[in-house]
């Protein structure tokens, strides 16, 4: 399947009719002229629309980043990606709607908690086994290894279930995890630095030396968290992103791996993930009912007034998240060996397997990261507007459009395409009503596929 990538993408060539380029240039000029004319007419309003466009574009950019990562690695269109966005947003809703927090619907149910506990323990079992098996090979018997992994995984699953079951006390239940994570990150950082400075000391010894201060610092962080119930919202963001990622990983390892071995065309994968999307959207309706839901205001809702335009603090935050997401993805793909492996798999999966890249693990991580990006985009949308069970598919399509506009498979194109899509949508609804913005997005897509099929920034 990797071999006929150009076929799989199905991107058309530029139309071979004379005058196409002229027409394209004319269209661009018309669009730009229209926008310039509108800006000249009412500058403060234009600033408002531009700002709204950037705020919406931030979400699209985030979606496009994750989507481009997944799509340009496996070259099939994973519709679970949309469900991940919905899952992330509804995860925050799930964790922040105790009756004590002033919501009428309490969706907390034992089935959901057990389900996600099971998913997490399954994913943890596979991850732990993959990480530990090569390191402990020959030192312990496989039975001991397997028993230990299962024990740890079940404990993690139970922990997840407990965290989900007590959403009002999330700052207490998660303090342990946050403390451990802090300690782990500190030990790893110290190891890196020391290995760079003094290569002769053994890494184990460094880790042991760093363990005590790291443990103290981790315990302190965890303790700080126990006194901060207000941190619950931000913790719930992290939890729902992680859960969406875990579901993606479980789907990949439990289903897509086998399916990709048999699949003759990317359409099979597309239809299968369509089935998953259908099922998840329906399950969301069953748990949360179909009425739109609102998330609590993250940073207060009083807008700032800048030169006649009203700007919400949360929107600035969303743009910041998108930029941070871009920087993180850029680091991951351009500066690490993981990124090199991802690009190699995107170019040719068979050959990467031959040269010794563990493609299953790398693609699993790609799915995990991609779903986390989608979930974060879903959360930002949820805070900005409202949650709807069907939001996933539309968000996914917007992410896809943004990555087509920017250029499929190009990191810079993804973020550029997201912002361009947001701006075009907002300037497009200046004269039309706001309800037409989905139609505008798709008209933009069709124009781009007809005239600039490779997007603004083509992949290499």
């Amino acid at each position, binding site marked *: 399947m990797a071999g006929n990538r150009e*076929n*799989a*993408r*199905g*991107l*058309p060539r530029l*139309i071979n009719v004379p005058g196409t380029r002229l027409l394209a240039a004319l269209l661009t000029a018309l669009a730009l002229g229209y926008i310039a004319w509108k800006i000249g007419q009412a500058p403060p309003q234009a600033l408002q629309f531009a700002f709204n466009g950037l705020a919406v574009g931030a979400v699209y950019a985030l979606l496009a980043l994750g989507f481009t990562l997944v799509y340009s690695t496996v070259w*099939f*269109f994973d519709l679970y990606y949309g469900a991940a966005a919905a899952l992330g947003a509804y995860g925050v809703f799930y964790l922040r709607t105790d009756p004590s927090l002033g919501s009428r619907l309490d969706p907390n149910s034992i089935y959901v908690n057990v389900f996600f506990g099971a998913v997490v323990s399954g994913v943890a079992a596979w991850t732990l086994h993959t990480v530990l098996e090569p390191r402990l090979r020959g030192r312990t018997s496989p039975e001991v290894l397997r028993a230990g992994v299962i024990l740890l995984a079940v404990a993690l699953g139970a922990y997840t279930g407990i965290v989900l079951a007590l959403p009002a006390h999330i700052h207490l239940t998660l303090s342990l995890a946050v403390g451990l994570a802090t300690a782990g990150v500190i030990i790893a950082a110290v190891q890196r630095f020391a290995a760079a400075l003094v290569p002769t000391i053994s890494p184990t010894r460094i880790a042991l030396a760093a363990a005590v201060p790291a443990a103290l610092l981790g315990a302190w962080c965890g303790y700080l968290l126990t006194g901060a119930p207000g941190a619950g919202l931000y913790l719930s963001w992290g939890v729902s992103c992680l859960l969406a990622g875990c579901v993606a990983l479980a789907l990949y390892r439990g*289903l897509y791996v*086998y*399916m990709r071995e*048999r*699949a*003759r*065309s*990317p*359409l*099979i*994968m*597309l*239809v*299968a993930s*369509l*089935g*998953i*999307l*259908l*099922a*998840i*959207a*329906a*399950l969301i*309706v*069953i748990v949360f009912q179909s009425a739109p839901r609102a998330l609590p205001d993250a940073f207060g809702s009083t807008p700032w007034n800048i030169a006649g335009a009203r700007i919400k603090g949360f929107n600035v935050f969303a743009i910041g998240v998108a930029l941070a997401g871009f920087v993180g993805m850029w680091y991951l793909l351009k500066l690490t060996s993981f990124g090199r492996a991802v690009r190699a798999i995107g170019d040719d999966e068979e050959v990467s397997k031959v040269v010794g890249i563990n493609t299953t693990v790398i693609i699993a991580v790609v799915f995990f990261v991609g779903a986390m990006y989608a979930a974060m985009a879903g959360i930002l949308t949820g805070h900005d507007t409202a949650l709807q069970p*069907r939001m996933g*598919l*539309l968000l996914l*399509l917007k992410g*896809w*459009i943004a990555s*087509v506009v920017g250029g499929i498979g190009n990191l810079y194109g993804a973020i550029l395409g997201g912002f361009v899509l947001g701006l075009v949508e907002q300037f497009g609804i200046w004269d039309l*009503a706001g*309800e*037409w913005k*989905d*139609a505008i997005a*798709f*008209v933009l*897509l*069709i124009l781009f*596929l*007809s005239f600039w099929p490779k997007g603004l920034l083509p992949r290499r």
Partner: protein
Amino acid sequence: MPVNLDGIRTFARLAQNPAELARHARGNIELWANLFVIGWAIAFMLWQGAGFAVIVLTVFAIWAILAVSLNLVVGFTGLLSVGHIGFFGLGAYTMAILTSDPAYEQLRTEAIPTFGWTFFAALPVCIGLAGLAALLVGVVFNRFRDDIFVLVSFGFAIIAFNVFLNLRSVTRGAFGIHEIARPQIGNWVFDGEVEFLLLGLAFLALVMLISWFITTSSFGRVLTAIREDEQAIEVFGYRATHFKLAVWVISAMMTSLAGGLFASWTSFIDPNSFILLESVLLVSIVILGGLATIWGSLLGAMAFVLLEEGMRFIPYLPTEYIGQARQVILGILLVLLMLFRPQGLVGRYRL
């Protein structure tokens, strides 16, 4: 034109020899799927009585017209279109606007043009408009394949839904259109459910006949060749673009016929009947039943309708979750089919 009777002949031969029949039936998913769905349908209708059976069959007839016409595009030509709900809605709205009762008191703020035509006068307009729209859309969409085609057809469904919802001066937006006329020939109005069912089945038969004619003709063989290898058939001198455009327009016209029937049957439509989800369900019916067979589409539509009705009798399932539960089951079925049987239950072509 020779009719393919091999299946019937094989069955007749097997029926005389029980041992061979048993051997033939083992592991034959196609046979079991047929038996299961047909048996389920018969049992269900016997159990529920004639009145219920008529309604179920009418719903089935509309879905079956949709599935058969979509199968021409998805199964026989290999273009996975998720946008056919747009043509369905176009047909339904054209029928609604042309035949809705002008005497019905309209909301003053949302007055829309009314014509008061009869069903059979409006039907050709429905079909013609859909054909025209399909021609325009098809010229643009013709250049896309595979994933990208799916994406732009999603786009078409969403644009169509936006038009139905927001073009309030024509469609009256979310309020919907009431009092759509029932079909009428002279003084004979198709008022009863049974009469309408007969009309629906007649149209279904017509659509099946047209599809059968298309797929067994040389035109259909070119479509199959396009599905298998577009470049190869171009080498033989066939313009694949023209063939794809032609089948796209024909399929859209048949879809809008179903839309007209649907509007007339329910006598009230609003944009919620034409959301993207319905289109996805329609595609899953076609894939579930089987790609590139007319019979498979009928089977898929029947299974889909029975799934919804059958859900009502699951204990402990609240009524408001019936649609959702059906959607979950359909989703899981799609995944299982893609894993183990990519051609669908009785299909002839693997995706």
